Structures are given as structure tokens and as C-alpha cells.
């Protein structure tokens, strides 16, 4: 083993143990605080954790050592070793801290059922007078989801070719473009549509347009990723064959690449529309218009029978969209 490599492994082992024991001492002080209202300063937590971890490392019984450094092969079962019990301690303490932090309370769950009586009775007795208003809001949601998808298609289609490993030349420029587009797609996709909706509802004002913009940004990122992965998984054989006929680069794209991706692209797009309708409801809650906004208003007015009506409509539309898009995608696969 090389010397610097050994140093690196040692450092990794020590760091792991430090983190583990500082975490454990942090958890313990959290519990002490909750149960006995003892306040332990954070510097102390770090010091206790570090001291314990150093002792454990010195004794050669730590988890870090087990993970990163070669140890003597012993046939000890895990429950006869110190690191085995350390792991048990970590899991146990994490669970207890989690339980307290989340305020888990089974008693409430079973005894306070009647608090939800209003909304439950609303679902079983929806206010049909609200049907027309809800349908209008629902149409708004469906159309905004549709437009968000349609506007996203050209952007995603264009970008996906540059985000496909097999089409980008293996040069510095090619790699840079590939990495930039891929990272943008990943970052924009990991920001939830709801966050975009908050931004755009400030930007263009509360309403369906803000919702559409939010879903569009999210769809561009998601479709770029899906499209480019589809391009990466095409069969290179036909591309090679078209090249061998003397076709130029554009002809190779049009006849070798595009026919292979067109129906999966359509399938992804329809699936995306389906997702967008579902997301549009949530986006409406934060100012994206449509049925989500109506639901929020009725909920805040505590009109449970109206809420029930809206919930029914959302459920039915999502169910229909889901079925239709599944059927269409099935047909596309046969093409």
C-alpha cells in the first residue's frame, strides 16, 4: 500500500469516528434537554464527542477503523465487538430522537378522529352547487399543464441533443457544453415546481400564468434529462449504417437518430403532461391559479362540502389522465 494512500485512509477513519461520536453526544444532549431541561453548550458536545472518539480510536475498536483500515481477521460475531454495539447505539438513538422531534403521538391519532369529521363528511356529501365553478377552475389547471408541456417541448428537444454523451464530440467544448446543460437540468429539476411557483407568482402575479411558468421550467429540465437519456440509449448500429451509405451529418441525425427516438419522446411528453396536471394542483396552492387556488380558498373558509367537491373532481381527472396516458404510451410502444 502506498504511503499517502494509507494516510488518507487513516484520516477518513478518524473523521468518520469523530462525526459519529459528536453526533451521538449531540443526540444525547438533545434528549437530556427535552427530558430534564439540562442545557449543554455546543462546544461541550463537540469536546465530549471528540474525547470519546479519540479513546475509541486509541483502543482500536472504532467503526472508522473497521470501515477503512485493515484489521486482523477475527471470527467474532458482531454482537461481541465494540463497533457492532456502536452501530446499535447509533440506530437506537436516532430512532428515539426522531420519535421525539416528529412529535409522534399514536394516542392523538386514535382518539382525535372526530376533528376530521367536517372534511370527511364533506367528501361524502360534496356541494354540487360548486360543480360549475370547480369545473372552470379545473379546466384552467388542465390547460395550464398542457401549455407548460407544449412550451417545454422545443426547449427540451433542442437541449437534449447537446446533453447526450454519444452525440457530443469528445472535445473540450463538447464536454463543457454537455456538463453545463446536464448540471442545469439537474439543478432546475431538483428545485420543486412549488418553489418556482412562489418565484413566478411574485414575478407575474398570482394566477394560472405563474403556475404555467413554474411547471414549464420544471418540465424543460425533466424532459431534457429524459430525452437525452433516450438519445444515449439508441442503437448505434443504424447510425453507423446510415453513415456508411455516404450520408452527411444532418442526414445521419434525421434518418439514424430521429426515427429511433420519436415515439419514446412522445411517450415521455404525454407522461409529463400527466405529471403536470397533478403538480398544477399543488402549484395552485402557492399562487399558481386553477383548481389548487380554489381548493386553498375553500379550505381556509372551512367550507368542507365545497372542499369535498373539489377533491372528487381532482381525483377523477387524475385517474382519467393516468389511464389515458398509460393507454397512449402503450400504443406508442407498439409503433
Amino acid at each position, binding site marked *: 500500500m502506498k504511503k499517502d494512500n494509507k494516510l488518507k485512509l487513516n484520516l477518513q477513519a478518524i473523521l468518520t469516528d469523530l462525526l459519529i461520536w459528536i453526533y451521538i453526544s449531540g443526540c444525547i444532549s438533545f434528549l437530556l434537554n427535552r427530558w430534564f431541561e439540562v442545557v449543554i453548550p455546543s462546544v461541550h458536545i463537540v469536546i465530549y464527542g471528540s474525547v470519546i472518539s479519540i479513546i475509541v480510536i486509541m483502543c482500536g475498536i472504532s467503526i472508522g477503523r473497521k470501515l477503512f483500515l485493515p484489521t486482523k481477521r477475527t471470527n467474532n460475531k458482531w454482537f461481541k465487538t465494540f463497533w457492532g454495539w456502536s452501530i446499535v447505539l447509533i440506530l437506537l438513538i436516532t430512532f428515539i430522537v426522531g420519535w421525539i422531534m416528529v412529535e409522534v403521538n399514536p394516542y392523538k391519532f386514535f382518539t382525535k378522529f372526530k376533528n376530521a369529521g367536517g372534511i370527511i363528511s364533506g367528501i361524502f356529501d360534496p356541494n354540487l352547487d360548486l360543480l360549475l365553478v370547480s369545473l372552470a377552475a379545473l379546466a384552467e389547471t388542465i390547460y395550464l399543464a398542457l401549455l407548460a408541456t407544449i412550451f417545454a417541448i422545443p426547449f427540451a428537444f433542442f437541449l437534449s441533443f447537446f446533453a447526450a454523451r454519444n452525440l457530443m464530440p469528445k472535445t473540450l467544448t463538447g464536454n463543457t457544453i454537455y456538463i453545463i446543460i446536464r448540471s442545469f437540468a439537474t439543478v432546475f429539476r431538483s428545485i420543486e415546481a412549488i418553489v418556482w411557483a412562489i418565484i413566478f407568482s411574485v414575478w407575474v402575479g398570482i394566477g394560472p400564468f405563474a403556475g404555467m411558468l413554474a411547471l414549464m421550467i420544471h418540465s424543460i429540465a425533466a424532459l431534457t434529462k429524459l430525452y437525452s437519456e433516450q438519445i444515449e440509449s439508441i442503437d448505434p448500429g443504424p447510425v453507423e449504417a446510415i453513415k456508411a451509405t*455516404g450520408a452527411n451529418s444532418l442526414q445521419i441525425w434525421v434518418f439514424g437518430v430521429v*426515427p429511433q427516438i420519436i415515439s419514446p419522446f412522445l411517450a415521455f411528453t404525454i407522461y409529463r403532461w400527466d405529471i403536470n396536471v397533478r403538480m398544477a394542483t399543488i402549484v395552485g396552492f402557492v399562487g399558481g391559479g386553477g383548481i389548487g387556488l380554489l381548493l386553498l380558498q375553500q379550505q381556509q373558509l372551512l367550507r368542507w362540502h365545497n372542499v369535498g367537491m373539489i377533491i372528487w373532481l381532482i381525483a377523477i381527472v387524475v385517474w382519467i389522465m393516468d389511464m389515458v396516458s398509460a393507454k397512449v404510451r402503450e400504443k406508442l410502444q407498439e409503433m
Partner: protein
Amino acid sequence: MKDIIEIKNLNKNYVGGTHALKDINLNIKEGEFCILLGLSGSGKTTLLRCLNRLIEPTSGEIHFDGEDIIVAEGQKLRLIRRKIGMIFQQFNLIKNLSSLTNVLTGKLGYLSLLYSLALSKNKTDVKIALGNLQRVGLKDFAENKIKNLSGGEQQRVAIARALMQNPKVILADEPVASLDPATADSVMRYLGELNKKDKITIICSLHFLSLARKYGTRVVGLKDGEIVFDGTPKEIDKKRFKEIYGEDAEAVEIR
């Protein structure tokens, strides 16, 4: 007969150090049906792909019909490529398009982008394509999608596509390796017919000695990137066969 392909000191080193072709010197005469024999990894595929520059050779010269392939770029390279048809082990057709459209793509080297977008609208080309499908016995399959065809039918569509190029040479990279013996023979029969009737030079890599004897006019044996045999199919006896395929090899006969 004049040489249609002249290969001089051809070398190919892959990134990673594999020396796939070592100083290959080979002249192919017009009208030959040249069979390349050799183990997998002996360099057959590399050699065939160097001939139309699907793989870039490391060094050496290749002349096709008097023109230097190695230095050709852009338009010039494409003009050379369109005179060299190619068929592949995995057929390499576009599976969700019809046979006819696939055959028509053989014409792409002759068309500008704009014209190629209206590929299936050109009556003359469609007529030629249908004629080529008829030649390989698939006239009634013109509208069928490739993925609904059997392996043998797909390879015949691939032959029709190569014919569309009006090629002087057809390169065949193990064209029958994924087919059953009977279908393999029928595909080879079509290639043999193109060789005899249309005088198309064929260079074909194979694994079956019996097919090499039946259709080949010349056999070139490759081993570790070098030519270890060059002669007529008749000259390959047990001893020669072992020179190409190694001591432990036994010929597998297919009829």
C-alpha cells in the same frame, strides 16, 4: 482484372494498446468474392471498417478505385462511401420504419438534405427501391416494419439497401453470424448472385468454412492482425485451417 482496393502497410492501434491490424498489405481485384476468415478479435471487423473509414486507421494507405480513402474528408469521403455498400451482423436497420424506407436510405449519399427529407416521395427512387426488394425476394414486404421481419428477411432488406447505393464493392461484416444455417445459406446466395451477375466485388468475413468454399473465390486468413493465409478456398485443408484458427480448432460444417 484491375485492383479495386489496394491496402498498403495498414495499421490500427486502439486506445488502450490493442494492435488490431499489423502492416496489412492486400489487393482486392475487381469482381472477387473475398472471404475473410479468422477468430473473433483477429482484426476482420477492424479491417472492413477501415475500408470505408467507419474506423480511422492509425497509419498506412488504402486506395479505392484509384482514390486515396485515408486522406479523403467531408464531401469526398462521402462520395467514396456511397460506392461502397455495407451489411452488418446485426443488420443495422431502423426497426420502426418500413422496409421500403430503410432501402431508400441507401440513396442518401446521392441526395442533398432537402431532397432526402422527401425521400419516399421520389417516384424514380421508390421504383428502384421496390426493384431491389424484389431482387432479394421481398417485394411483398415493402410496407412491413422491420421489427416484424425475421433475421434472414432483415439481412435481405440490408442487402437491398446496399444495392440502392449502386455500389462497386460490398463489405459484409459477418452477415450470417446471427442467422440459422439454412437462412445463412440463402443470404450468402443473394450475395453470390450480386457478385456474379452485377460484378460487384464482395469482401465478406465469415466463420463457416463450408460457406467460404461454396461462395468465395478467394480466402484471406487473419490471425492477431496479420494475414496468415491468402489463396483459393480449395487450398484450405486441415493444416491451413489450424494455422488460421489455432491448434485446437475443428471446422464446423454447415450445409
